[in-house]
C-alpha cells in the first residue's frame, strides 16, 4: 500500500474514528523502513511515481508480536478495571 492509501483505508475501516495525519504517518513509515520492518517498491503510474510499502519477514514477525503485546495489555487493563471477584 502507498501512504495516502493507508490514511484512507484506516479512515474507512474505522468509520472516521481514527484519522492518521500525514505529519505522523510518513515519519513512522520511514522509521519502520529504517528498522528493516518495511520494504518499498516504486511504480510509475503515468504522470508520477508511487512508492508502495509492504512488510518484510521481520516486519510480519514484529507485527504478530505487537498484536500479542496489545492483547496482553488489553487483558491487563480489563483485569484492573473489572477484576473478577473470587
Amino acid at each position: 500500500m502507498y501512504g495516502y492509501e493507508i490514511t484512507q483505508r484506516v479512515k474507512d475501516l474505522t468509520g472516521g474514528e481514527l484519522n492518521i495525519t500525514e505529519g505522523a504517518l510518513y515519519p513512522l513509515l520511514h522509521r519502520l523502513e529504517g528498522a528493516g520492518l518495511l520494504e518499498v517498491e516504486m511504480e510509475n503510474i503515468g504522470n508520477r511515481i508511487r512508492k508502495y510499502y509492504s512488510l518484510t519477514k521481520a516486519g510480519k514477525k514484529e507485527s504478530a508480536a505487537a498484536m500479542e503485546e496489545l492483547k496482553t495489555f488489553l487483558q491487563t487493563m480489563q483485569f484492573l478495571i473489572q477484576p473478577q471477584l473470587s
Partner: protein
Amino acid sequence: MLTKEQIEYLFAFCRKHWVNYYDVQIELVDHLANAIEDKIAANPKLAFEEALTQTHKSFGVRGFAPVVQEKQRAIERQSRRLLLQLFKQQFRWPKIILALMIFTLSFSLAPLLPNDYFDITIMIAIIIIMVIIAIAGYSLQRLEKKSGHKFLLLQYQNALNCAFLPLNLMTAIQLFPNEHKIMLNKLGTSGHLIGCLLLTLFVIMAVATCRVFKNIKQTLLKNYPEVFQIAA
C-alpha cells in the same frame, strides 16, 4: 488525474518548502496529488491551489520537516546496519579467506621490513585503501550529479564513519601519552600483531563499505530507472 504541469508545480512546491531531495519529493508529490484529486472530485469548484493549501496544512505546523528528518535518520540507520551486516559476513566461510590472507601476508612481511618502517608501511597501506573508498564514493556522487537530482539516500556519510574505527584505534595508539612515544614497531612481535590486525580489520571494513556503495547504487537504479537511465 492531475496534468503534467500540475505535477511539476507540486515538485516546485516541495522545493519551496525545503524538500530538496528527489527521493523524498516523489513520495510527497504522490500524496499531495492523491489528496488534491480526491478533494477536487468531491468538490469540482475547488481550485487546485486551494486544494494544495488544505492538503499541506494537514502536515501540521512543521510541514514537511519531520518527514525529511525521519527519512534521514532512517537512511543512516539502514546504512549503518547494512555496513555491520556486510562486515560480519566477511568473517564467514569462504569470505574469511580474504581476512586470513591479509593478516598472514602482512604478519609474515612485518619482520622483513627495516626498523621504523613498519608504522609508515601500515599508514601508507591505509591511505591507499582510503583513496579507493573515496573513489568509490565519488563515483556515486558523480552518478547523482549526472541525474540532475539530489538524493537523500546518498547522504550516508554520518552512518559510515564507523568504517574508520580501526584507523582511529591506530591513531590513538600512536598518540598515547608516554615519555617514550609508543610506536608499534618498538613493541616487537606484539606491535606487529596489533598493526596487522588493525590493517586487516580496516581492509575488511573497506570491502564492506564498497559493498554498501554498490548496494546504494543498485537501489537507486532499481527505484529510479527513468532518472538514472538518462544519466547512464
